[in-house]
């Protein structure tokens, strides 16, 4: 469904990614792991159009999306969450999720200012749909809270809820478990599985190995910008190169 074709990214003199290629199958939870600085976030930034790669191609459903603008990708069904949670802090939880429905809706400045009938209907739809997603992630009781006042774990959850509201085909999550306690991590794992069940493909960057090994298949390992290995959790755990890369960096 998503195919990365020898992606290279060079920042000034630093090669953050070198000839990385792999594919993500529809309906999978694909894990991307690697030590700090391996280039995982850079990879997401390239796929979501925030960075332009130095060379290589990103293909989504047979369509070359390498040079599409970030804002286009959401409407193609590709969304993400951020490693350093990027919420709309001044807005409520509900409003955050409502922004997720931006792509699915159309009212422009004029119809919003004059509250044309179509816009009123659409607004109602946005609100109801958003409440449904909050229910899906179990955040209904926090709908009215300002996002900036959420505890950290809930912030991560809200980012996922907002991404889901965009009705994506694929969601990229950048370290969703970072900063969560163990109970929250378990809940996150079951949420990710639940998301997969709805037919959404997940790509998961994560340092929490238990989580990755539990729910991801396949797993791609990056180290120092290069793809080191790819395979099932079992294969990865037994891969000598992967083990030494992790031991070396620890």
């Amino acid at each position: 469904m998503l195919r990365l074709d020898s992606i290279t990214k060079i920042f000034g003199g630093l090669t953050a990614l070198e000839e990385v290629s792999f594919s993500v199958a529809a309906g999978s939870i694909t894990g991307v792991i690697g030590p700090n600085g391996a280039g995982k976030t850079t990879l997401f930034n390239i796929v979501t159009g925030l960075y332009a790669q130095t060379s290589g191609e990103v293909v989504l459903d047979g369509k070359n999306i390498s040079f599409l603008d970030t804002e286009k990708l959401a409407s193609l069904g590709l969304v993400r969450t951020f490693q350093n949670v990027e919420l709309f802090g001044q807005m409520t939880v509900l409003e955050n999720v409502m922004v997720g429905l931006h792509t699915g809706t159309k009212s422009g400045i004029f119809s919003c200012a004059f509250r044309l009938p179509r816009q009123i209907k659409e607004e109602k739809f946005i609100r109801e749909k958003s409440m449904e997603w909050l229910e899906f992630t179990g955040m209904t009781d926090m709908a009215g809270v300002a996002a900036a006042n959420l505890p950290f774990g809930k912030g991560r959850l809200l980012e996922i809820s907002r991404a889901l509201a965009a009705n994506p085909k694929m969601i990229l999550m950048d370290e969703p478990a970072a900063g969560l306690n163990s109970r929250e991590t378990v809940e996150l794992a079951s949420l990710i599985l639940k998301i997969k069940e709805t037919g959404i493909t997940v790509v998961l960057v994560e340092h929490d190995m238990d989580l990755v090994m539990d729910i991801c298949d396949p797993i791609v390992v990056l180290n120092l910008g290069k793809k080191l290995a790819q395979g099932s959790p079992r294969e990865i755990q037994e891969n000598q190169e992967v083990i030494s890369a992790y031991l070396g960096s620890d």
Partner: protein
Amino acid sequence: MTEKKRQIIVFLIFAAAALSAPFFLKDSYLITVLIFVGINTILAIGLNLLLGYAGQISLGHAAFFGLGAYISGILTTRFPLDPFLVMILAAFCAGALAFVIGFPILKLKGHYLAMATLGFGIIMYIVFNETVSVTGGPSGLSGIPYLSVGPLVFDNDWNNYYLVWISTLAVMLLAINLTQSRIGRALRAIHDSEVAARVMGVNARILKVQIFTVSAVISAFAGSLYAHVVTFIAPASFGFHFSVELLTMVVVGGLGSIYGSFLGAAILTMLPEFLRVFHDLDIIVYGLMLILMTMFMPGGLVSGIQMVTQYIAARKAKRKDEHAQA
């Protein structure tokens, strides 16, 4: 639903108060001042959409105000054109200019955007001053006709008050609608995290230009009204100083609050009228207000009022509790 109802009631009360005010005011001087409060409210709302909602600063908004005023002033004094048509034309021109410069200017962020809009404002101010044959230069342009609809001529305070305040209320209503919609949320999303907004499919680049354009159109509309109400315009009203005054109105009233824009406009318009000493001290007071507000009440007076009412409500609730326990 109750929230929506509450908002409608608040607006109706506000509108009723605004429209009935002249009946209670014996003093026609006060009515004149309130006319300017109305015009400044429109301007502050225009800037607030850009600054308070989308989080994009402009230090050159007086230029769009001036553009509206000058286009209306020049065309209606020189040619036998319908002033209302000219008003639409003026708004259109300001919007077109904003749209064109909006693309390169809104690519800039933060401090750079501030400097660029400031530069734009000063260039326009120089143009107003130096194209003497068209604008009348520093000594201004006089003899701008009053507006009229059939036999009704807006040549006295009473009529102008209603002309301006019906316009103000309309702009307020449209702005409130806009801010509470999909577009309003997208604007605030850009303000809080532009990357996240873009990832969620908000075309930040275009939306910023659009709201800049809307904001320019609103400012130009206020400019046209101003020109016809005052019948005399000069560049001094449209310079950097006024851009800063507008900024102060928005910050004092409350970034991201439409009623806050009214509050800010009202305070900054009335202060110099009633405190004579204020005349020479105005920029000191603006400076202090900007600093103090930004430091201690970043949400503006509107947030201050909210805090106070919440505090009072909490105290009442507590007292009730104590009663119940006793």
